[in-house]
Protein backbone atom coordinates (compact mmCIF):
# COMPACT_ATOMS: atom_id res chain seq x y z
CA UNK A 1 0.00 0.00 0.00
CA UNK A 2 2.73 2.45 0.89
CA UNK A 3 4.56 1.69 -2.33
CA UNK A 4 1.71 2.47 -4.67
CA UNK A 5 1.23 6.03 -3.47
CA UNK A 6 4.65 7.45 -4.44
CA UNK A 7 4.32 5.76 -7.80
CA UNK A 8 1.05 7.53 -8.45
CA UNK A 9 2.33 10.89 -7.27
CA UNK A 10 5.46 10.61 -9.40
CA UNK A 11 3.41 9.50 -12.36
CA UNK A 12 0.98 12.38 -12.03
CA UNK A 13 3.73 14.90 -11.34
CA UNK A 14 5.53 13.65 -14.40
CA UNK A 15 2.51 14.17 -16.60
CA UNK A 16 2.08 17.88 -16.19
CA UNK A 17 5.39 18.94 -17.76
CA UNK A 18 4.93 16.30 -20.44
CA UNK A 19 1.62 17.79 -21.42
CA UNK A 20 2.85 21.37 -21.23
CA UNK A 21 5.75 20.73 -23.55
CA UNK A 22 4.26 18.21 -25.91
CA UNK A 23 2.79 19.92 -28.97
CA UNK A 24 1.98 17.34 -31.61
CA UNK A 25 4.85 18.15 -33.95
CA UNK A 26 7.62 18.34 -31.33
CA UNK A 27 10.65 16.16 -31.95
CA UNK A 28 10.67 12.96 -29.89
CA UNK A 29 12.45 13.21 -26.57
CA UNK A 30 15.81 11.53 -26.36
CA UNK A 31 15.45 7.78 -26.00
CA UNK A 32 12.20 7.95 -24.04
CA UNK A 33 11.18 4.35 -23.51
CA UNK A 34 7.64 5.10 -22.41
CA UNK A 35 4.88 5.65 -24.95
CA UNK A 36 3.85 9.27 -25.40
CA UNK A 37 0.88 10.39 -23.36
CA UNK A 38 -2.35 10.80 -25.20
CA UNK A 39 -4.13 14.12 -24.86
CA UNK A 40 -7.74 14.78 -25.65
CA UNK A 41 -9.59 18.06 -25.34
CA UNK A 42 -13.13 18.24 -24.14
CA UNK A 43 -15.07 20.25 -26.75
CA UNK A 44 -15.87 23.81 -25.81
CA UNK A 45 -13.65 24.02 -22.73
CA UNK A 46 -10.11 24.35 -21.45
CA UNK A 47 -10.29 20.94 -19.84
CA UNK A 48 -7.88 18.34 -21.15
CA UNK A 49 -7.64 14.67 -20.37
CA UNK A 50 -4.12 13.27 -20.44
CA UNK A 51 -3.24 9.61 -20.25
CA UNK A 52 0.23 9.01 -18.88
CA UNK A 53 2.71 6.30 -19.81
CA UNK A 54 2.43 2.88 -18.27
CA UNK A 55 4.94 2.54 -15.44
CA UNK A 56 6.15 -0.86 -14.29
CA UNK A 57 6.23 -1.47 -10.55
CA UNK A 58 7.08 -4.62 -8.66
CA UNK A 59 3.35 -5.30 -8.29
CA UNK A 60 2.53 -4.65 -11.92
CA UNK A 61 1.92 -1.89 -14.43
CA UNK A 62 0.39 1.42 -13.35
CA UNK A 63 -1.08 4.00 -15.70
CA UNK A 64 -3.10 7.06 -14.77
CA UNK A 65 -5.20 9.57 -16.62
CA UNK A 66 -5.43 13.13 -15.35
CA UNK A 67 -7.96 15.79 -16.18
CA UNK A 68 -6.43 19.26 -16.37
CA UNK A 69 -7.98 22.69 -16.38
CA UNK A 70 -5.11 24.83 -17.53
CA UNK A 71 -2.26 23.65 -15.32
CA UNK A 72 -4.52 22.45 -12.53
CA UNK A 73 -5.28 18.80 -11.97
CA UNK A 74 -9.01 18.44 -11.51
CA UNK A 75 -9.27 14.67 -11.55
CA UNK A 76 -7.16 11.53 -11.57
CA UNK A 77 -8.30 8.15 -12.81
CA UNK A 78 -6.44 4.85 -12.84
CA UNK A 79 -6.29 3.29 -16.30
CA UNK A 80 -4.15 0.34 -15.26
CA UNK A 81 -3.28 -0.81 -11.79
CA UNK A 82 -1.94 -4.05 -10.38
CA UNK A 83 -4.68 -6.49 -9.52
CA UNK A 84 -3.90 -6.38 -5.83
CA UNK A 85 -6.36 -5.41 -3.11
CA UNK A 86 -3.87 -3.27 -1.19
CA UNK A 87 -2.96 -1.32 -4.29
CA UNK A 88 -6.57 -0.79 -5.23
CA UNK A 89 -7.35 0.56 -1.78
CA UNK A 90 -4.28 2.78 -1.78
CA UNK A 91 -4.91 4.68 -4.97
CA UNK A 92 -6.07 8.16 -3.98
CA UNK A 93 -8.29 9.98 -6.40
CA UNK A 94 -8.94 13.64 -5.73
CA UNK A 95 -11.51 15.96 -7.17
CA UNK A 96 -10.83 19.68 -7.28
CA UNK A 97 -13.66 22.11 -6.66
CA UNK A 98 -14.13 25.77 -6.00
CA UNK A 99 -14.55 26.88 -2.40
CA UNK A 100 -18.08 28.06 -1.81
CA UNK A 101 -19.74 29.65 1.19
CA UNK A 102 -23.23 28.41 1.87
CA UNK A 103 -25.85 28.39 4.53
CA UNK A 104 -27.87 25.25 4.95
CA UNK A 105 -30.14 23.44 7.32
CA UNK A 106 -27.86 21.20 9.36
CA UNK A 107 -28.02 19.32 12.67
CA UNK A 108 -24.47 20.05 13.78
CA UNK A 109 -21.26 21.64 12.56
CA UNK A 110 -17.78 20.19 12.19
CA UNK A 111 -15.02 22.72 12.58
CA UNK A 112 -11.98 23.34 14.67
CA UNK A 113 -13.87 25.24 17.35
CA UNK A 114 -11.33 25.33 20.11
CA UNK A 115 -11.94 28.41 22.18
CA UNK A 116 -15.06 29.64 23.90
CA UNK A 117 -14.99 32.80 21.78
CA UNK A 118 -14.93 30.70 18.64
CA UNK A 119 -17.82 28.67 19.92
CA UNK A 120 -19.97 31.69 20.73
CA UNK A 121 -19.75 32.96 17.20
CA UNK A 122 -20.14 29.59 15.65
CA UNK A 123 -23.12 27.99 14.06
CA UNK A 124 -23.02 25.16 16.57
CA UNK A 125 -23.75 27.65 19.35
CA UNK A 126 -26.79 28.82 17.41
CA UNK A 127 -27.96 25.25 16.94
CA UNK A 128 -27.56 24.48 20.65
CA UNK A 129 -29.47 27.62 21.60
CA UNK A 130 -32.23 26.76 19.14
CA UNK A 131 -32.68 23.28 20.56
CA UNK A 132 -32.68 24.07 24.26
Amino acid at each position, binding site marked *: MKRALPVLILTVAGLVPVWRHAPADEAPATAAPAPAPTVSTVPGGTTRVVAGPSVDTEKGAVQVEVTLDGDRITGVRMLRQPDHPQTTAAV*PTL*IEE*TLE*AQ*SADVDTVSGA*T*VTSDGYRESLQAALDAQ*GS
Partner: protein
Amino acid sequence: MRRVEHVMGFPVSLRVDDEDFPAAAADGLFAWLREVDARFSPFREDSEVCRLDRGELDPDRLSPHLTEVLGLGERYRTATGGAFDVRLPGRRLDPCAVVKGWSVQKGAELLRAAGARRFCLNAGGDVVAAGGPWRVGVRHPEHAGRLCAVVPLTDGAVATSARYARGDHILDGRTGRPSTGLLSLTVTAPTLTEADAVATAAFALGADGVPWAAALPGCELFAVTADRRVLRTPGFPADGSGQVAA
Protein backbone atom coordinates in the same frame (compact mmCIF):
# COMPACT_ATOMS: atom_id res chain seq x y z
CA MET B 1 -32.42 15.41 25.23
CA ARG B 2 -29.83 18.11 24.68
CA ARG B 3 -26.85 18.98 26.88
CA VAL B 4 -23.91 21.33 26.44
CA GLU B 5 -20.91 21.38 28.79
CA HIS B 6 -17.40 22.72 28.57
CA VAL B 7 -14.91 19.91 29.07
CA MET B 8 -11.24 19.59 28.07
CA GLY B 9 -11.27 23.24 27.03
CA PHE B 10 -14.02 23.06 24.44
CA PRO B 11 -17.81 22.86 24.30
CA VAL B 12 -19.33 19.40 24.05
CA SER B 13 -22.88 19.28 22.66
CA LEU B 14 -24.96 16.16 23.06
CA ARG B 15 -28.29 15.46 21.41
CA VAL B 16 -30.05 12.14 22.02
CA ASP B 17 -33.37 11.60 20.25
CA ASP B 18 -34.31 8.33 21.97
CA GLU B 19 -37.24 8.87 24.28
CA ASP B 20 -36.65 8.30 27.98
CA PHE B 21 -32.88 8.20 27.55
CA PRO B 22 -31.63 8.32 31.15
CA ALA B 23 -30.08 11.61 32.25
CA ALA B 24 -27.66 9.56 34.33
CA ALA B 25 -26.16 8.14 31.14
CA ALA B 26 -25.51 11.65 29.82
CA ASP B 27 -23.96 12.47 33.20
CA GLY B 28 -21.76 9.40 32.72
CA LEU B 29 -20.53 10.67 29.37
CA PHE B 30 -19.50 14.04 30.76
CA ALA B 31 -17.95 12.40 33.84
CA TRP B 32 -15.83 10.25 31.53
CA LEU B 33 -14.67 13.28 29.55
CA ARG B 34 -13.75 15.13 32.77
CA GLU B 35 -11.83 12.05 33.91
CA VAL B 36 -9.95 12.01 30.60
CA ASP B 37 -9.06 15.67 31.05
CA ALA B 38 -7.76 15.05 34.58
CA ARG B 39 -5.68 12.07 33.50
CA PHE B 40 -4.36 13.07 30.08
CA SER B 41 -4.18 16.85 29.97
CA PRO B 42 -0.66 18.16 29.36
CA PHE B 43 -1.75 21.34 31.18
CA ARG B 44 -2.50 19.67 34.54
CA GLU B 45 0.64 19.00 36.52
CA ASP B 46 -0.86 15.98 38.29
CA SER B 47 -2.13 14.23 35.12
CA GLU B 48 -0.71 10.87 34.09
CA VAL B 49 0.69 12.54 30.98
CA CYS B 50 2.62 15.17 32.96
CA ARG B 51 3.84 12.64 35.49
CA LEU B 52 5.09 10.38 32.71
CA ASP B 53 6.75 13.35 31.05
CA ARG B 54 8.56 14.20 34.31
CA GLY B 55 9.75 10.62 34.66
CA GLU B 56 7.56 9.92 37.69
CA LEU B 57 5.77 6.95 36.10
CA ASP B 58 7.35 3.64 35.18
CA PRO B 59 6.93 3.45 31.37
CA ASP B 60 6.45 -0.30 31.68
CA ARG B 61 3.58 0.04 34.15
CA LEU B 62 1.31 2.65 32.62
CA SER B 63 -2.48 2.49 32.80
CA PRO B 64 -4.09 0.59 29.90
CA HIS B 65 -5.74 3.81 28.69
CA LEU B 66 -2.48 5.76 28.61
CA THR B 67 -0.79 2.85 26.85
CA GLU B 68 -3.59 2.92 24.25
CA VAL B 69 -3.24 6.69 23.74
CA LEU B 70 0.55 6.53 23.37
CA GLY B 71 0.13 3.61 20.96
CA LEU B 72 -2.18 5.71 18.79
CA GLY B 73 0.30 8.59 18.81
CA GLU B 74 3.11 6.25 17.79
CA ARG B 75 1.01 4.73 15.02
CA TYR B 76 0.37 8.13 13.41
CA ARG B 77 3.93 9.37 14.01
CA THR B 78 5.21 6.39 12.04
CA ALA B 79 2.54 6.72 9.36
CA THR B 80 3.39 10.39 8.73
CA GLY B 81 7.16 10.05 8.79
CA GLY B 82 7.30 12.12 11.99
CA ALA B 83 5.16 15.06 10.83
CA PHE B 84 2.65 14.15 13.50
CA ASP B 85 4.32 13.64 16.87
CA VAL B 86 2.99 13.78 20.44
CA ARG B 87 6.59 14.33 21.59
CA LEU B 88 7.88 17.28 19.58
CA PRO B 89 11.49 18.16 20.41
CA GLY B 90 11.82 20.78 23.13
CA ARG B 91 8.16 20.51 24.09
CA ARG B 92 6.26 18.62 26.71
CA LEU B 93 4.46 15.39 25.90
CA ASP B 94 1.16 16.48 24.33
CA PRO B 95 -1.17 13.70 23.18
CA CYS B 96 -4.23 16.01 22.91
CA ALA B 97 -4.63 15.37 19.20
CA VAL B 98 -5.21 11.65 19.74
CA VAL B 99 -6.88 11.90 23.16
CA LYS B 100 -9.76 14.01 21.89
CA GLY B 101 -11.04 11.69 19.18
CA TRP B 102 -10.30 8.55 21.18
CA SER B 103 -12.09 9.74 24.33
CA VAL B 104 -15.14 11.12 22.53
CA GLN B 105 -15.48 7.89 20.55
CA LYS B 106 -15.34 5.97 23.84
CA GLY B 107 -17.95 8.38 25.19
CA ALA B 108 -20.20 7.60 22.22
CA GLU B 109 -19.84 3.92 23.01
CA LEU B 110 -20.97 4.63 26.59
CA LEU B 111 -24.11 6.28 25.17
CA ARG B 112 -24.75 3.30 22.93
CA ALA B 113 -24.30 0.89 25.84
CA ALA B 114 -26.87 2.92 27.78
CA GLY B 115 -29.40 2.44 25.00
CA ALA B 116 -28.92 5.50 22.78
CA ARG B 117 -29.68 4.64 19.16
CA ARG B 118 -30.11 8.04 17.55
CA PHE B 119 -27.64 10.58 18.84
CA CYS B 120 -25.21 13.26 17.76
CA LEU B 121 -22.20 14.14 19.89
CA ASN B 122 -20.16 17.19 18.94
CA ALA B 123 -16.95 17.83 20.88
CA GLY B 124 -15.36 21.11 19.86
CA GLY B 125 -16.30 20.60 16.23
CA ASP B 126 -15.55 16.88 16.02
CA VAL B 127 -18.67 14.79 15.57
CA VAL B 128 -19.82 11.23 16.28
CA ALA B 129 -23.29 10.45 14.96
CA ALA B 130 -25.47 7.35 15.16
CA GLY B 131 -28.86 6.32 13.87
CA GLY B 132 -29.04 9.02 11.22
CA PRO B 133 -29.81 10.59 8.86
CA TRP B 134 -27.88 13.53 10.28
CA ARG B 135 -26.66 16.54 8.39
CA VAL B 136 -23.23 17.74 9.46
CA GLY B 137 -22.12 21.13 8.17
CA VAL B 138 -18.44 21.81 7.58
CA ARG B 139 -17.47 25.27 8.78
CA HIS B 140 -16.17 27.56 6.09
CA PRO B 141 -12.50 28.25 6.89
CA GLU B 142 -12.89 32.00 6.39
CA HIS B 143 -16.43 32.69 7.61
CA ALA B 144 -17.38 31.36 11.05
CA GLY B 145 -21.08 31.68 10.33
CA ARG B 146 -21.02 29.91 6.97
CA LEU B 147 -20.54 26.39 5.73
CA CYS B 148 -18.47 25.09 2.84
CA ALA B 149 -19.96 21.59 2.69
CA VAL B 150 -22.73 19.51 4.20
CA VAL B 151 -22.11 15.85 5.03
CA PRO B 152 -25.08 13.50 5.28
CA LEU B 153 -24.14 10.95 7.93
CA THR B 154 -25.96 7.88 9.23
CA ASP B 155 -23.37 6.31 11.52
CA GLY B 156 -19.82 7.54 11.71
CA ALA B 157 -17.53 10.41 12.55
CA VAL B 158 -16.41 13.75 11.11
CA ALA B 159 -13.36 15.70 12.30
CA THR B 160 -11.88 18.98 11.12
CA SER B 161 -8.45 20.50 11.67
CA ALA B 162 -7.94 24.09 10.66
CA ARG B 163 -5.72 27.13 10.98
CA TYR B 164 -8.60 29.41 11.95
CA ALA B 165 -8.99 27.90 15.42
CA ARG B 166 -5.78 28.95 17.14
CA GLY B 167 -3.72 30.26 14.29
CA ASP B 168 -0.73 28.21 13.25
CA HIS B 169 -0.93 25.79 16.16
CA ILE B 170 -0.34 22.51 14.38
CA LEU B 171 3.37 21.92 13.93
CA ASP B 172 5.00 19.77 11.29
CA GLY B 173 7.23 17.48 13.37
CA ARG B 174 9.56 17.03 10.42
CA THR B 175 10.53 20.72 10.53
CA GLY B 176 9.25 21.92 13.92
CA ARG B 177 7.49 24.77 12.12
CA PRO B 178 3.77 25.50 11.76
CA SER B 179 2.05 23.59 9.03
CA THR B 180 0.64 26.14 6.57
CA GLY B 181 -0.23 24.23 3.41
CA LEU B 182 -3.93 23.90 4.23
CA LEU B 183 -6.64 26.18 5.60
CA SER B 184 -8.78 23.32 6.82
CA LEU B 185 -9.10 19.59 6.45
CA THR B 186 -12.20 17.53 7.20
CA VAL B 187 -12.08 13.74 7.46
CA THR B 188 -14.93 11.23 7.71
CA ALA B 189 -14.21 7.77 9.11
CA PRO B 190 -16.12 4.99 10.90
CA THR B 191 -14.79 6.20 14.27
CA LEU B 192 -13.76 9.57 15.65
CA THR B 193 -10.60 7.97 17.02
CA GLU B 194 -9.48 7.61 13.43
CA ALA B 195 -11.12 10.71 11.89
CA ASP B 196 -9.61 13.11 14.44
CA ALA B 197 -6.11 11.60 14.42
CA VAL B 198 -6.06 11.45 10.62
CA ALA B 199 -7.31 15.04 10.30
CA THR B 200 -4.62 16.36 12.65
CA ALA B 201 -1.86 14.17 11.22
CA ALA B 202 -2.74 15.07 7.63
CA PHE B 203 -2.88 18.74 8.57
CA ALA B 204 0.61 18.48 10.05
CA LEU B 205 1.78 17.03 6.74
CA GLY B 206 0.38 20.07 4.92
CA ALA B 207 -0.22 19.61 1.21
CA ASP B 208 1.35 16.13 1.44
CA GLY B 209 -1.38 15.17 3.87
CA VAL B 210 -4.13 15.28 1.25
CA PRO B 211 -3.01 12.26 -0.83
CA TRP B 212 -1.81 10.57 2.36
CA ALA B 213 -5.23 10.69 4.03
CA ALA B 214 -7.03 9.99 0.75
CA ALA B 215 -5.21 6.66 0.55
CA LEU B 216 -6.33 5.46 3.99
CA PRO B 217 -9.07 2.81 3.80
CA GLY B 218 -12.36 4.01 5.28
CA CYS B 219 -11.35 7.69 5.30
CA GLU B 220 -12.81 10.35 3.01
CA LEU B 221 -11.58 13.92 3.04
CA PHE B 222 -12.44 17.48 2.12
CA ALA B 223 -9.46 19.83 2.17
CA VAL B 224 -9.25 23.58 1.60
CA THR B 225 -5.75 24.51 0.48
CA ALA B 226 -3.93 27.71 1.38
CA ASP B 227 -4.84 29.10 -2.06
CA ARG B 228 -8.54 28.42 -1.34
CA ARG B 229 -9.06 25.42 -3.56
CA VAL B 230 -11.08 22.43 -2.46
CA LEU B 231 -9.62 18.96 -2.88
CA ARG B 232 -11.86 16.07 -1.92
CA THR B 233 -12.09 12.34 -2.42
CA PRO B 234 -14.92 11.18 -4.69
CA GLY B 235 -16.40 9.27 -1.75
CA PHE B 236 -16.59 12.33 0.51
CA PRO B 237 -20.31 12.39 1.20
CA ALA B 238 -20.94 16.06 0.47
CA ASP B 239 -24.32 17.56 -0.37
CA GLY B 240 -24.20 20.75 -2.36
CA SER B 241 -20.48 21.33 -1.87
CA GLY B 242 -18.49 23.52 -4.22
CA GLN B 243 -18.87 23.12 -7.94
CA VAL B 244 -16.44 20.85 -9.73
CA ALA B 245 -13.90 23.14 -11.35
CA ALA B 246 -14.73 23.18 -15.05
